[in-house]
């Protein structure tokens, strides 16, 4: 039967992404969400700290730490598993035997994984926001009660405490922080996918991607040496240049540290960061396609 065949089909990609998402959910990866909830509630209500700001900050620090751990671990390990698992299950042959171009297969896999990471981050963001809001109000009431008992409650002191608590409490910028975590995970996932197209084993992909992640977090230091000429030796300079060129700058997405502190996030900054993230993802996907398109399976 001869039908119209599109060289690029969004429907095919979405079907592949949906299948990938189902495949990953079946690996019981989302159990982490329960662990995350327990961590957030534990840190939110168990740790007694002297200042209301520090109580809220610790809650955000630990929660964002867990968020980052979830996204990076998922981006590295789940991506590394995708291709080998499809080879092992022979689903890869079934898919590629149909008129599915290889770039669509790669895109579908990446989108499925990003949907899982994005969905997980949204759920964790909601849990964090809920707990933070409750804790914020509790901390405010406790502080005001303490001021009242000392006879120091005035409209001015109440306003100052409100300001202090609000700065460390729930704000829209926290979602910008979560989005930055997602962007970093997207870059790492595409990098891992690229490595997995030429890797000989899952372990090789995991190790290489973790190395790239570590180098990526030190990339600003490498660029600092490269641009600002702190190094005199030829070999040191060459090494810093290679690191600066090859590894993505993952520290660029680490706005979380300052978002936790209540810094405002201008839309221009978010756009720049998103643009850089998109550039890495597209670049690594092109390389992954070039390596995968004629690979003998």
């Amino acid at each position, binding site marked *: 039967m001869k039908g119209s065949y599109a060289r690029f089909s969004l429907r095919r990609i979405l079907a592949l992404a949906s299948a990938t998402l189902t495949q990953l959910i079946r690996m019981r990866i989302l159990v982490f969400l329960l662990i995350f909830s327990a961590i957030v509630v534990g840190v939110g209500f168990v740790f007694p*700290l*002297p*200042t209301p*700001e*520090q109580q809220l*900050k*610790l809650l*955000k*620090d*630990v929660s*964002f*730490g867990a968020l*980052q751990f979830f996204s990076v671990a998922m981006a590295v390990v789940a991506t590394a598993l995708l291709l080998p698992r499809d080879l092992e299950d022979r689903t890869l042959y079934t898919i590629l035997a149909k008129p599915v171009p290889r770039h669509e297969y790669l895109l579908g896999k990446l989108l499925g994984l990003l949907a899982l990471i994005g969905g997980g981050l949204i759920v964790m963001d909601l849990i964090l926001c809920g707990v933070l809001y409750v804790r914020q109000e509790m901390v405010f009431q406790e502080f005001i009660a303490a*001021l009242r008992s000392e*006879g*120091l409650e005035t409209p*001015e*002191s109440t306003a*100052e405490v409100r300001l202090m608590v609000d700065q460390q409490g729930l704000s829209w910028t926290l979602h910008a922080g979560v989005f930055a975590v997602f962007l*970093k995970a997207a870059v790492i996932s595409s990098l891992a996918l690229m490595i997995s197209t*030429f890797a000989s084993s899952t372990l090789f992909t995991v190790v290489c991607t973790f190395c790239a992640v*570590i180098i990526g*977090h*030190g990339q*600003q230091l490498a*660029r*600092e040496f*490269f641009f600002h000429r702190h190094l005199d030796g030829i070999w040191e300079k060459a090494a810093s240049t290679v690191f*600066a*060129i*090859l590894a*993505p*700058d993952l*520290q*660029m*997405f*680490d*706005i*979380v*540290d*300052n*978002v*936790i*502190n209540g*810094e405002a*996030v201008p839309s221009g*900054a978010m756009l*720049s*960061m998103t643009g*850089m993230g998109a*550039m*890495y993802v597209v*670049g690594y996907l*092109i*390389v992954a396609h*070039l*390596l995968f*398109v*004629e*690979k003998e399976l």
Partner: protein
Amino acid sequence: MKLKRIVQAALVLLFLGVAKVPLEERVTERLRAENLLSPPLTLEVRENVGQMSFAAALGGLRSLVASIVYLEAYTAFENSEWAKVDSLFQLITRLQPRMVSYWEQAAAHMAYDAAAYYLKSEEIEPAVRGRLFQEHVDRGIAFLEEGLTYLPDSARLWARLGDVYKYRVKSPKKAAEAYWKAFECGRQPFLQRATAYELSVLPDEEDQRRAYELLKIRYGEGDRYPTVIAKIKQFEEKFGVPLAVRIPEAMPQRSDADPGMNAGPNVDVEGR
């Protein structure tokens, strides 16, 4: 995999790498200018936090590392290990220099807690006690001044500096300057009153006249605390203000009542 494809992939990777470096530099500079990215960690921090924490801080968990070191500093504070509190807060403030409460707490631990501890410690020679007291007050001031280099518009830090000058150094002039800076940053009325109270105890008539003007502003905006009224009445007498311009209230019975001001640290140590 064909060699042609491998070469193509390598070329794309190289092109991406060369193109991204200046872009990364520009975006990083922009994010730093907008205070979204912290300055790179120094070698001094690496030596102090240990390798694991340094790696975590590099990996986007700088705020978490600061919180963990803070817990350690809190334990040191409970054990009155002041040198350790000092060095740990130095580290915390290096990790998160834009967090106001870290500078504030570092200064409070030094200028109030540690200073009072040494002043009251009977195991130490009286002459040494005074010296240690002064050194820790100075250390508290140094923390606040360093914090203000990162956060020059922080009303809270200026106000805390004013508190230290008021309660610890007993310098109304410097306290007034700091409170005034705090008022300029935050426009909080109690800081304007605090400036006026400090200026009012200075011997210079120019300072006292400024105190009077500020108190009249506060009075006009509804601050009817006994202290405000008492000080205005004193100045009206002293400067011979015409009766028609004077405030209508009588001299209050309790001249020290201003709940906004009592919110400061209750730290007046005997003999200082």
